[in-house]
């Protein structure tokens, strides 16, 4: 992954933050009609989701290969077989049509690999799932380096750079809550 691709991605994330702030300012403006405010609130949720997902994504990738503890591997791998099974599942769900986010999610009693369509974080969180791994599968995340057909190669590559230390910490936070 080139610096060009990553820097461009950071700019995209910054724009989302700027959009969120601009929408917050609009909501505070009394002269904006109520019906428009409802729409703005809806869009602000979208921007917020975009921001949170990007932060989770940037946090959980690391150029150094960080492996999880044996304890964690036992817990998670028991559901999937082994870590590479999770990696393969992430690649598999990323082939879903459209843009979105591939991820590993945990609820109180289960761990699943799923695909979030668009920025619809609510689709998993409403079902009680919290993120362990998040991989951006929007086109801006990979087309510059991998080409328009390169999503699968991009996700495969990125699974090698998952920071399993971060993933483990997220898992422990979820289960101890």
């Amino acid at each position: 992954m080139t610096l060009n691709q990553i820097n461009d991605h950071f700019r995209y994330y910054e724009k989302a933050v700027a959009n969120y702030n601009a929408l917050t300012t609009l909501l505070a403006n009394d002269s904006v009609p109520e019906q428009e405010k409802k729409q703005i609130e809806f869009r602000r949720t979208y921007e917020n989701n975009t921001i949170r997902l990007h932060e989770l994504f940037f946090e959980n990738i690391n150029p150094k290969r960080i492996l999880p503890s044996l304890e964690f591997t036992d817990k998670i791998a028991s559901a999937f077989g082994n870590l590479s099974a999770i990696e393969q599942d992430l690649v598999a769900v990323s082939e879903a049509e459209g843009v979105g986010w591939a991820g590993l999610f945990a609820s109180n009693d289960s761990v699943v690999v799923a695909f979030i369509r668009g920025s619809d974080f609510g689709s998993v969180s409403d079902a009680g799932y919290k993120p362990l791994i998040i991989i951006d599968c929007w086109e801006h995340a990979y087309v510059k380096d991998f080409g328009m057909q390169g999503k699968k190669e991009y996700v495969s590559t990125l699974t090698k750079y998952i920071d399993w230390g971060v993933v483990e910490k997220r898992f422990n936070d979820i289960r101890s809550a």
Partner: protein
Amino acid sequence: MMHILVVLALLSSCKCSFHPFSGPLKNASPKRPVGTYKLSPQEYSVNETLVDWVTKNNFPGISNKMMVEHVDLYRGYVKNANTLLANMAKSSIDSVMKLELGRRFGFEANGVHLHELFFSNLHPSPASPSENLVSVISDEFGSFNKFLERIQIIGGTRGTGWVTMTLDKSLNRLILNWVNEHQDGQSIGDVVLAVDCWEHAYIKDYKSTARGDYLQNLVKLIDWEVVERRLKAAM
């Protein structure tokens, strides 16, 4: 009984040319004669003439490399749409999960149609729109320039999708709106203009935050003759 009498009274008094409901009338013959017609079903196929049009010409502001890759995506949609058609025909209608294949069909099929509409409404150096088209556009959007601005504003909608313009025949109006992905929010009517706003359409040549720049350039590449031809055919 009362409401039927009211409706019949209204029907006899109103000068409308259609019945407000479509239920069978008491004295109508039970079998309507139906003309016979035949369809010759085909699969989607890649329009190679169209592919040549966009890959063998130089479109200012769109690199040939990006255009070639974009065409490959379109080929993928054709393939996926055909695969889905085949699988949908095979699947058992009782299976809830296999019905989900049908849910995906709109995405793939519209992916094919919209890309074909998009590629065919591009021109490396389009002629100015005709007086007639300018007049029709101005009636709806105020002026042709305001219309071009509107395309760019709507094209900046957050998310991934298209700007399409359709002719709504019940309103006799041109509807310019955002379609999310390929199928959410598509207005019903013949599409006369399609502008691809997916990130893949610009991200190799522009920054991810520069969709506006891409659109500012794109409106200079719209073939107004094609748009006008589609509009006339739709009317």
